[in-house]
């Protein structure tokens, strides 16, 4: 069964996308990513350490030939900064993909929707493949797709909160509203959250803290792998409708004493 996710002609083997932040070290990052089975990893764009050049580089551990690198604009609070960061990421020459984040507030890390639209418009014109982090708002998703974004990435809950999908109904409406892949980004806490996102019909889930912050990140990475697979399969299988009353699983016929 060919069930590959394709965005702008790029084939993704995994529907679990993993961030590279907050791990103990690069060795643990690498192991967690390997165990998760992902082929997409997100990275931040930051100043090179000029003073301490002995510092190892993430890409020494995460081979860009093996993994699709998805640079983000995390930490950007204005459209201008996000555009600048995304353009630098593209110029680094590994990918045209960018996970566009324009943050609106430090406490919630909720996106600034207005600035996200503004930045998306410019970056799409520059030829980047813009995957925008957005609130779980169907209207916002529609606007981003109308601009030309080839996928949308609504949040499940605040970044790093582990609260899971706070509004599955909005996610469902987004899935019905847009014709592009929907990738749940941020806020999932555990494997069942991931499974739920996939059961709703989402095309992929992107997470970081849920793995990196677990007591055993490697084991959690494996749990997430199965969460995505189970959820996707369940979605494709067509679940039974929910009913209020019981339906017996065993036949009535052939009961003794009847």
């Amino acid at each position, binding site marked *: 069964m060919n069930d590959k996710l394709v965005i702008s002609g790029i084939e993704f083997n995994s529907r679990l996308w993993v961030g*590279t932040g907050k*791990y103990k070290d690069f060795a643990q990052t690498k192991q967690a990513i390997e165990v998760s089975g992902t082929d997409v990893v997100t990275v931040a764009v*930051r*100043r*090179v350490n*000029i003073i301490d050049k002995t510092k190892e580089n*993430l890409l020494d551990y995460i081979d860009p030939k093996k993994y699709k690198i998805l640079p983000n604009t995390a930490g950007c609070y204005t459209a201008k900064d996000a555009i*600048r960061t995304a353009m*630098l990421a593209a*110029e680094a020459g590994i990918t045209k993909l960018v996970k566009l984040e324009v943050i609106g507030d430090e406490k919630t890390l909720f996106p600034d929707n207005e600035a996200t639209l503004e930045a998306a418009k410019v970056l799409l014109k520059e030829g980047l493949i813009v995957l925008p982090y957005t609130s779980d708002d169907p209207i916002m998703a529609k606007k981003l797709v109308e601009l030309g974004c080839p996928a949308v990435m609504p949040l499940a809950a605040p970044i790093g909160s582990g609260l899971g999908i706070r509004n599955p109904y909005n996610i469902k409406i987004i899935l019905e509203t847009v014709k592009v892949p929907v990738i749940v980004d941020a806020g999932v806490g555990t494997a069942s959250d991931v499974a739920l996102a996939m059961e709703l019909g989402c095309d992929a889930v992107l997470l970081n803290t849920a793995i990196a912050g677990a007591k055993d990140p490697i084991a959690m990475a494996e749990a997430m792998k199965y969460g995505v697979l189970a959820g996707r399969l369940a979605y494709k299988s067509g679940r039974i409708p929910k009913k209020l009353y019981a339906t017996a699983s065993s036949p009535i016929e052939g009961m003794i004493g009847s």
Partner: protein
Amino acid sequence: MDRKSMNITLNGEKKQIPNGLTVLGLLEFLNIQHQRVAVERNLDIVKKDRYGTTMIQEGDVLEVVSFMSGG
């Protein structure tokens, strides 16, 4: 000031570098692998194929970025 060197701002820090360096020369001087970085000079991105011909000038503000851990 030493005539053989000039002052620039590099990744937010004041720095003295030798005169007459190109962007490529600067990256080599700093011992930075230039394949995986992107460079911004005075808010304009320097294309990779211009690294060898773009001269650093006194007072330039440069940003050299790369991919780091992040979600």
